[in-house]
């Protein structure tokens, strides 16, 4: 398997090509994710939303690094822990926060909620609640790209628990058999809900190695370093673009909060110390900030300004969400059928809904 040594990540061509502005943008994207989610958490605790809220905090470098590699035909799809990817592909906080509040101005008009963010115009295909269920969809995006003759890729993110859903293996086999440019990115944060990796999976050296049995290239990487994330994912993107071959990547990362906001036990199934160690020594934002300070691309003042902007964007988005209208009752039956919404001939023929 192709690998790059740690020292080389910063000097990988894809990272060498970064301008100072690019590097700062990466910082900004990570901060936007963190500040957005912190604001969302407060709003959740204030009773402003329902359902689940799965925070991505701690894992920001993965989505920010990966999505920074996207060209016009590179697509992203993920699971329910989807705010980070959504913001990283360029969604604005307003539509995302409004979605959490269940408002008509939300990205899914209040229909999807936290687990179901979408922005097809930004090549972002969600946000999927069923563990592993997005893996065949990622395959389909890659198939669609190839069918259309486009040079692109489909990055399909998933958790370390999701690897135990069977459709992932079916998808790997098909991706390899048909030479489809899908990149499965396992964000291994060590836990699926309250179950540690060791209690859910058996593997050789890592989960990604399971790809070996399907003739698929795979690699592991440390998610705390944006350079490493970008360098190694770019290898997969190049493989997708140039050879139309799949890749499976496993990224070591960590979530600071519980599985969801409702996870009261997250300091029982893992130690406080474990969490604090990660925050202190492996925080991707701190590490990237330190890098940029070291590279003299950034100074403290600039950092504060960027962070303040992210915080302001987040708090503004809360106001936007608060002030946005609740969707109308009629909207419950909108967006069910395309043909009905557009009132095409097909949509006007026969009965589609069955109340009364």
């Amino acid at each position, binding site marked *: 398997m192709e690998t790059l040594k740690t020292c080389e990540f910063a000097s990988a061509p894809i990272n060498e090509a970064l301008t100072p502005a690019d590097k700062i943008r990466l910082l900004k994207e990570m901060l936007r994710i963190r500040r957005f989610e912190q604001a969302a958490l407060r709003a959740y605790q204030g009773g402003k939303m329902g359902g689940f809220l799965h925070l991505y905090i701690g894992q920001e470098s993965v989505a920010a690094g990966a999505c920074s590699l996207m060209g016009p035909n590179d697509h992203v799809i993920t699971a329910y822990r989807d705010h980070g990817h959504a913001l990283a592909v360029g969604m604005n906080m307003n539509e995302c926060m409004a979605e959490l509040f269940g408002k008509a101005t939300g990205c899914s008009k209040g229909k999807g909620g936290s687990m179901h963010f*979408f922005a097809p115009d930004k090549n972002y295909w969600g*946000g999927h609640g069923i563990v592993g269920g997005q893996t065949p969809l990622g395959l389909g995006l890659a198939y*669609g790209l190839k069918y259309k003759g486009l040079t692109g890729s489909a990055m399909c993110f998933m958790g370390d628990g999701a690897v135990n859903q069977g459709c992932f293996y079916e998808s790997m086999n098909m991706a390899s058999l048909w030479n489809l440019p899908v990149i499965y990115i396992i964000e291994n944060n060590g836990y699926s809900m309250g179950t540690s990796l060791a209690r859910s999976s058996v593997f050789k050296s890592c989960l990604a190695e399971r790809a070996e049995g399907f003739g698929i290239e795979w690699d592991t990487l440390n998610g705390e370093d944006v350079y490493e994330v970008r360098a190694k994912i770019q290898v997969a993107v190049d493989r997708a673009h140039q050879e139309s071959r799949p890749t499976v990547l496993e990224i070591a990362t960590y979530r600071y909060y519980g599985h969801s906001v409702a996870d009261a036990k997250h300091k029982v199934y893992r130690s406080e110390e474990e969490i604090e160690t990660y925050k202190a020594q492996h925080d991707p934002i701190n590490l990237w900030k330190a890098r940029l300070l070291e590279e003299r691309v950034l100074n403290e003042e600039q950092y504060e300004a960027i962070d303040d902007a992210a915080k302001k964007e987040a708090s503004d988005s809360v106001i936007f969400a608060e002030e946005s209208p609740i969707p109308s009752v009629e909207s419950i039956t909108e967006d069910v059928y395309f043909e009905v919404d557009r009132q095409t001939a097909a949509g006007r*023929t026969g009965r589609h809904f069955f109340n009364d």
Partner: protein
Amino acid sequence: MAEITYREALRHAMAEEIERDENVVLLGEEVAEYDGAYKVTEGLWKRFGDKRVADTPISEAAFIGMGVGASMLGLRPVMELMFWSFSSVAWDQIVNNAGFVRYMSGGLINCPIVIRGPANGGTNVGATHSHTPENWLANVPGIKVVCPATPYDAKGLLKAAIRDNDPVMFMENTLLYGEKGEVPEEEYIIPLGVADVKREGTDVSIIAHGRAVLTALKAAELLQAEHDISAEVLDLRSIRPLDEEAILRTVRKTHRVVLVEENKPFCGVDAQIASIIAEKCFDDLDAPILRLSAIDAPAIYSPELERRQLPRPTDVVEKVLSICR
């Protein structure tokens, strides 16, 4: 008009749509090089090549999900399930991804997929291979369900399904593949959501879908010939969207109704039809609404008994007589 089989009608529909729209692609197990387990896609791979017609591994969850993903990008995949029974291993992809992705995205994403294949009992392949999930799928808002009974309908409905921008579950029947019927040379489309009066009558309405329509028609002949009862036979054709008006019209005309389907009774499609009629034709009915479904057990293998398990024309006659005498 030429007489062709139901199988050929389906094949022609697919061929025409492949030619018409470059985004149409046929995928499934054995659909290409093998010409289809039931030969529905015979010759299409030879004619259109690897890109438009391709064989998949036995991975229904992955390939159905793949079709859903591709449809989100604008392709119009026509996916064959060798049997609709095998939807059981792709259930999540069908219901949650095909069925709900438009809704969950607030209408940003469409899923113009067709999933097709045979959904029927009666061929002695046992309980695991004889599912008729039209009721399960029509339960899901976001999904459309079609069950054609004749070659003419099969072709016109499949073309409509492929052009439809919503996910359509298209349920065929291995026992109908060889049935012949008139199909015009000229292009035509049968819109989803339009039922068809397959036989006019005045004394009783028999409402059916899929192969049960043929059973109903045979029963109607027996009723006419042997009992001087004039039965109207309404073929639902499309389960969702549903032609409710046609249902109400025939019931209000005859005032008596027998519902026939090959599914198991509990929460079958006809439970829904009955509940609609019971509500909306309360004052029109001169007799209770009767239902005839498969005998309520998993599909039995034993050939003689499976014939008995599914509604027969004589069973329909008996039901009708019980409310027309």
